[in-house]
Structures are given as C-alpha cells and as structure tokens.
C-alpha cells in the first residue's frame, strides 16, 4: 500500500467519525452554524482527497452530498431526520469502500450502482428529486480553485496527465497546466460558437474529452441542433493566452490552473503499489507447482523480464545485475526457486529503502492533502498531535528484547555474588546492577506505553450504534460517554469492542423498559445509557450502565436451580448480589431465559469468556427497578512473560524465566548427599538440589544412575537452589491469566496460559514454592 493511500484511509476514517458525530448532534440539537460547517468540511475534504485516487463512484456521491450540505449551510435546504439518515448511509458506504480499498486497492464491482442509488436517496431526502447527475454537473458555487482542480484531475487519465507534464517540461518559463471545462449554451450553434474549433485552435492542447452533459435527453426528444455536451481539456501554456482563446464564451468556461506536483505525486506512488504487486506476483508464479517441462524456461524468463522491468521502471538499475545472475542460473538448472529467492532478497532490500523514503513522503503528503481542499486549520491540528505509525511486530520485538535484557541482568547479579571479588568491587557492581535494574524496568514501562490507545477508539462507534438501536426499538436513549481518554494496551482496547457492544445491545433490548412501562414507573421517557472508562489499580475498567429495570435475582435463582447449576439450598443461601452474577454462567444463556430474566443472559457467558481470555473479570450490579451496571475489569496490558516449559512428575509445567539464572545437565555422580540433603557444586558454591515433582507432591520417576540430572538453577530471595526436573522443553512468550474462580485458592501458581494446541499450561510460582 502506498503511503498516500494509507494516509487517505486513516484520514478518511477519521473524517467519517467526525462527520457522524456532528450529524448526530445536529439531529439531536437542531441546526447550528458550526455543526453544519464541520460536517460540510468533513465531506468536502473526503471528496477532495478521494479525487486523488481512482474512486470515481465515491467522489461523485460525496460531491452530491457536499452540494446538499452547502445548501444547508446557506439556508437553501433544511436538515431533517431523513437527510441525516441519507448522509449517514453515505458515510457508511464510504466506510465500506475504504475497507475494500484497503483490502484490494480498488472499489468493489457495483460501486457505481450503489453510488447512484445513494445519490437519489440523498436528493429525495433533500426534496430535490430529479435524475442523478454524473460527475457533478453543477459544481458548488463556493468551491474554490484547489477543489475544482481535484475534480478536474479526476476526469483525466494517467496517460493524459503524463502527456501534459511532458509538454510542460518542453514549454518555456511562465507556462503552466490549465484545466478547462467548457459547457456551451444549448443554443451555441446558432450563436456562431463552434466549441470544437475553439479547442482545435488552442495551443498546447494536451488532453481533450467530450462528455455528455446532463440531463441527457431521451431519444424522442433529442435535438441535434441543441448542444448538451461538456468539453474538458488540459492545456499547457500561459494562462492569459488560454483565457484569451475563450474570451467570447468566458461565461461558459472555467479555467483552473493546476499544480504541477498534484498529478505527478500520486501517480508515482501508485506506481510503487503496482510495482509491489507485480514483484509479489512473479514470486507466486515461480512457486506455482506442476509446470510442464517445456514451459519452465519461458516462465523463468518472463518472470525475470517482469522483475527487471519493474526495477528499470523505478530507476533501480543497480539491482538488475543480481536478478539477471539468478535468472541465468535458474534457466541453466531449470529451477524457478533460484530466481524467486533472489527476487525476495531484492524485494527486501527495496522495501527497506522505501521505508526510508517514506519518512519524507508522509511529511510531504500533508501539503498534498491541503491542495486537495483541506482547510488550513485542520492541517494545523494534524501537525500538533504528531503520530508515528509503527508496525506492531516491531514494538513486540522491542518488548522481547527488553524481556531478554531483564534475564541477562539477573545473570549479572548472580555473577557478582559468586565472583569472589573484593567488597569494594562487589559494591560498585551492585550499584551498577541497581541502575541497570531501574533502567530495564523503565524501558519496559516505556515500551508498554507505546502500545497504549485511548478508550475513545472503542467508544466512538457507540453514538451511532445506540442511535440506530434506539430508533429500531422505539426507545429514546441518551448516551453518555465518560473517560474516553483512559488508556490501555492496543490489544486490550481492540478486544473491548465486542463485549461492550453485546452489553449495550442487552441494555437497550432488555434492560431499558418500553416507554409506557417507564412512564408507569415514574421514570423519564428518555433512558440514559452510560459508557464509562477509567483506570484503577493497574486495570482498565469499563462500565456499561443503564437506568432500566434491573435484574430479578429471584428469577435467576429459580432458573439456576432448574438448570441444575446448583441445588435449591445453595441458591437460597446466595445473596441477591451473588445471585445476579449467575447471568454469566453458561447454562443460563438460553432463549427462554430471556424474557423471564429481564432478558439478561443472552450471550453473557460469551462476554465473560471474551473478557477472561485477556485475564480480566466481569461483574454485574443490579438495582431492581433502577438499573444495571456491568463492569468489565481488564489488565492494562497483555504483558507477556517469558516462560520455560519443563516436565516434572509426568506433567508439563511452566516456569517464568526471570527466576531461572541457568539450566544445566549434570552427571548424576556429581550430586552428593550431605546429611539429609542432595547438593552439587557450581562455581565453588554448594547448592542444594530439590526435586520439583516432590515439591509439588507428584510422583517422581525412577531415575537411573547413568542418566544426567537436569537442573534449573533458581535464585529466590538471594538463595540459590537447583530444581531438578525430568526434562526441559521449549521457551515461549505467554500471556498469563491469573488463577481465579475455584483456582484462586491454590497457592504456588502464578497463573495459566493457553498453549498453541489448546492445552492449558500451569505456570509455577517458584518463589512461593521454594520459600
């Protein structure tokens, strides 16, 4: 993906959010100058930026929407619910298109049809009616020159733009590229105007198109003597001369000088995306199995030719030699893989350089968007909060490095104490170790903070969702968002959306009463739903609170007994508060439970499962008749722990690497008995040996004398011990889930983690076990 497209996608999604938010405000609080201006600007910028890509349908639709908004701004059109709906539908469509654009680089088939239907929806919502006008037949009167430029450019193909640039290079100083749009009056032929002749005589004509004007008449009414055409052209030359050529029809012509860089910039970067795709395709081609023998050479040769041509296109002659060499070898041995390996190496090199170049490119794209019609102040705010886009994998890598550094640092501490150096040296080394320790911890925190995102990322989707749900259910709802700025790790924030959505749906569907019930209960007609986020004791808390009917604890008890979750006596012993927690039990999530239990329970176990997967917990508080609050508490980070898996007593267990200073294999003869204890000597220190299986009360296997002992050298509270295990297995980075529920009473374990094969690995708390 090109940086420009990346920027467009990000910016576009931001604008959609912004426009959505303000449209909802407009609908709720009525028309306001500022609100309309913001929405207008968002659509305007979206349209302007879209003109830089091949997304004609999107540009066309946004153009119509923008026109309508201009009308609202100038008081020509009145904004109503129907128009808000239509504009929101437009934004939805743009959002979907952006997704497709991201995935495939182009709009889906049928985009034009969708655009047309939305355009007519927009028009009828605004009370305009009439046929959809293609390509913005009536440009908004307030559209500025830059805006028109983007429109004009979209009308011409890549080849035509290149031709204009070529002519410009040949032309003398003072020349520029001018976009011309000439829509002659219907009766122009009788006025003696000859549009075609005008263009024919135009010096420096680079591109010329004739399009049908609008509306195109039906055939029976078609009058060949009436002109309904639009002429578009690109010309290179001095603006004065071009204007002069059209002086007699100046009222029907628009001439807009174009910025030279505008067409060239995107074209070049688009080329990069195509180049990427072509290179990737050659690798796929070379890896395609089952090539008939006679076609192998042709296939290798054509892939080599394609890749070499990409390199020439990009002006990377230096890389050609390596590809040629590989191609010759691949041809000689009839082995396509030799070439594909070389292409991959070259591509890696090329990508690295592009990344370097991108630093400059993304900085340069800001003026580009400005040229596409973005307001100056938007650009300024954009610059104020500078965001660096980093590949997640790189941050993860950094995280792993910090983890390994911590392990290495632990080794240093151990070495200091066993080194036998003099006291002064030991003290100095210990100081140094203390500093290293602090730095490592700070670094760990800093890396974690890179990954932090505000809850806004999740919350911002809800105003729209709640509006739609509330309309559908016929229950007026006021949504209150609190604490959108609270932050948590990206992975956590991203996993919050589904559970919160579930809870919001439940609240509106079943928690909030129908209007007549609210009235009889003496509650305000409009329900209040609150999404609240905050940090507390190393956790991120998200609460979904409604002022609905609450949960009937008695019904829950009854249902739980019926389901066999617990017996009647146990159910009776539960406090109401504990009883309502049963909504999260899997057995209660059946459809028939819905109506009886005020609807709560639908998928609540799914919410719990999702939250617990990340090491979080969920609780519910119900105030009968007054409302329900569901609280999700998740860790701030999915901090992973480096774990060594070991075998002991026939089981697989995890040991956190940070307490293990080394692992050794030792001939059994070197383990001696001193009184009751087994010991061994490591670097002149006598170290006790304990068997892990015995510590855990597991059966220890019979060990033969010839077999080496496998020991973890562990340091806890300054004491060193050798923990014997039956075998070492792999090391892994795992996210620990704390022991909770029934397991929370068991000591000696840090938590559990899920292995790739679905097996649950118990992770030992060696510190506690050895104490």
């Amino acid at each position, binding site marked *: 993906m090109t940086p420009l497209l990346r920027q467009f996608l990000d910016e576009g999604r931001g604008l959609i959010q912004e426009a959505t938010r303000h449209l909802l405000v407009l609908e709720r609080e009525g028309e306001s100058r500022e609100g309309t201006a913001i929405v207008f600007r968002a659509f305007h910028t979206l349209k302007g930026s879209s003109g830089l890509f091949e997304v004609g349908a999107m540009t066309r639709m946004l153009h119509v929407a923008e026109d309508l908004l201009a009308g609202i701004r100038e008081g020509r059109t009145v904004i109503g619910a129907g128009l808000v709906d239509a504009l929101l539908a437009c934004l939805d469509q743009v959002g979907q298109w952006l997704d497709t654009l991201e995935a495939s680089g182009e709009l889906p088939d049928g985009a034009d049809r969708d655009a047309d239907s939305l355009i007519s929806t927009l028009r009828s919502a605004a009370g305009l009616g009439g046929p959809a006008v293609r390509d913005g037949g009536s440009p908004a009167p307030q559209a500025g020159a830059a805006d028109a430029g983007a429109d004009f450019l979209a009308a011409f193909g890549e080849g035509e733009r290149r*031709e204009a640039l070529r002519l410009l290079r040949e032309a003398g100083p003072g020349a520029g590229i001018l976009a011309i749009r000439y829509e002659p009056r219907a009766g122009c032929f009788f006025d003696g105007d000859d549009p075609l002749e005008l263009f024919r005589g135009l010096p420096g004509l680079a591109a010329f198109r004739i399009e049908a004007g609008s509306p195109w008449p039906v055939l029976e009414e078609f009058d060949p003597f009436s002109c309904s055409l639009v002429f578009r052209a690109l010309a290179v030359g001095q603006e004065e001369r071009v204007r002069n050529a059209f002086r007699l029809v100046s009222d029907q012509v628009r001439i807009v000088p174009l910025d030279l860089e505008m067409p060239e910039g995107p074209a070049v970067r688009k080329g990069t995306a195509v180049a990427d795709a072509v290179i990737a395709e050659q690798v796929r*081609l070379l890896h395609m199995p089952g090539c008939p023998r006679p076609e192998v050479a*042709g296939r290798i040769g054509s892939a080599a030719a394609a890749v070499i041509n990409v390199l020439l296109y990009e002006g990377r002659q230096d890389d050609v030699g390596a590809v040629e060499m590989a191609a*010759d070898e691949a041809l000689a041995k009839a082995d396509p893989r030799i070439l594909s390996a070389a292409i991959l190496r070259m591509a890696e090199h090329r990508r690295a350089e592009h990344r370097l170049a991108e630093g400059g490119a993304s900085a340069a794209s800001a003026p580009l968007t400005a040229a596409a019609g973005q307001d100056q102040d938007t650009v300024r705010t954009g610059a104020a909060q500078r965001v660096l886009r980093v590949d997640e994998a790189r941050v993860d890598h950094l995280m792993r490095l910090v983890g390994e550094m911590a392990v290495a640092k632990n080794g240093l501490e151990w070495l200091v104490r066993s080194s036998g150096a003099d006291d002064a040296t030991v003290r100095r080394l210990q100081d140094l170790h203390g500093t290293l320790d602090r730095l490592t911890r700070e670094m760990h925190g800093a890396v974690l903070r890179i990954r932090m995102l505000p809850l806004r990322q999740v919350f911002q989707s809800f105003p729209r969702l709640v509006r739609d749900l509330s309309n559908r259910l016929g229950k007026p709802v006021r949504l209150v968002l609190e604490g959108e700025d609270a932050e948590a790790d990206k992975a956590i924030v991203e996993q919050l959306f589904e559970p919160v959505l579930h809870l919001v749906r439940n609240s509106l569907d079943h928690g909030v009463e129908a209007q007549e019930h609210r009235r009889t209960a003496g509650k305000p007609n409009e329900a209040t739903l609150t999404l609240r986020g905050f940090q507390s004791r190393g956790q991120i808390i998200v609460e979904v609170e409604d002022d609905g009917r609450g949960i009937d604890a008695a019904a829950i008890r009854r249902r739980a007994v019926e389901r066999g979750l617990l017996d009647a006596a146990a159910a009776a012993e539960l406090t109401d508060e504990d009883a309502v927690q049963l909504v999260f039990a899997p057995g209660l999530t059946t459809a028939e439970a819905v109506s009886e239990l005020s609807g709560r329970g639908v998928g609540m176990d799914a919410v719990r499962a999702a939250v617990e997967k990340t090491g979080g917990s969920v609780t519910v508080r119900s105030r009968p008749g007054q409302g329900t609050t569901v609280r999700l508490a998740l860790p701030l980070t999915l901090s992973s722990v480096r774990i060594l898996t070991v075998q002991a007593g026939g089981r697989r267990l995890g040991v956190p690497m940070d307490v293990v200073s080394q692992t050794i294999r030792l001939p059994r003869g070197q383990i001696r008995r001193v009184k009751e204890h087994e010991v061994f000597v490591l670097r002149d220190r006598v170290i006790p040996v304990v068997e892990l299986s015995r510590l855990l009360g597991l059966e220890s296997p019979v060990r033969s004398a010839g077999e080496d002992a496998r020991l973890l050298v562990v340091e806890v509270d300054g004491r060193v011990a050798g923990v014997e295990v039956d075998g070492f297995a792999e090391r892994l980075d795992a996210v620990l889930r704390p022991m909770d529920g029934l397991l929370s009473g068991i000591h000696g374990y840090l938590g559990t983690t899920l292995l790739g094969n679905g097996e649950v690995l118990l992770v030992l708390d060696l510190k506690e076990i050895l104490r």
Partner: protein
Amino acid sequence: MPDATHPYRRRAGAARRVLVVDDGTLIRIYYRKALERSGFGVDEAVNGIEAMEKLLSGHFDLVIVDINMPKMDGLSFLRALRAQPEIGSLPAIVTSTESAEHDRDAARAAGANFYLTKPVSEDSLVLHAAVLTGASA
C-alpha cells in the same frame, strides 16, 4: 550460463510495443487509445493463433491477453507462448471478467505475469503496462 534461447533482457532505448489480444473490437480500441496516448506502440490480435503469428514476426515488450476468445483461448495461447524458445520470456498480462482466486491461479499456472480484472481503467492499464515493460516514469 545465460540461455541464449530465452532472451529475457529487453532491447535498450526502443519504444515499448504492446500486443493486445482480445476478440472484442471495442476493448482493443480502448486499450490501443489508452496505450498510445501514453506513448506505447500497439498492435492487435483477435485470437491466440493470430497473436502467436504476430509475436513471431515482430518485436514486442508485453502481451495483454483476454482469457475467453474463439479459436485459441488466452490460457492455451499463454502455454504455447511459454514453450516458444525465442519469445517465451515475453511478459504477459491476463485480463478477465472473473475475479475469483482460482481464475488467477489458472492464469498463473499458464504462465501469466499479472492478472487484471475487467473492466480495466485507463490509468490502471497504462500503469501496469509501464511497470511491466520498464518504461521510464
């Protein structure tokens, strides 16, 4: 050892020539206009057999071929092309109205260097042609 029978290096300096192979007249005109506007030399063929004859009798830098054609379809043509010693290394773009992954795989298996789903916009066509022929930007 370079394989003299499969020259994959292009001639330096010359204008890029593209052979458009499609049984649709309109498509051929559209491609020709678009490519010529951007400085490519263009020749046309209406089926695989005619395309092979043209390729064997003149120099080309790229062939753009449709899948569905009478006489010799695009994929059979590509296979036959790849087995030709002198011209087998010619880069080829396959175009088709199908966009499913197995259609792309089929084109790949026949030795296509790129696949474009119809309709192909002018910009896209010219850009791919430029990249695949190494036309300087």
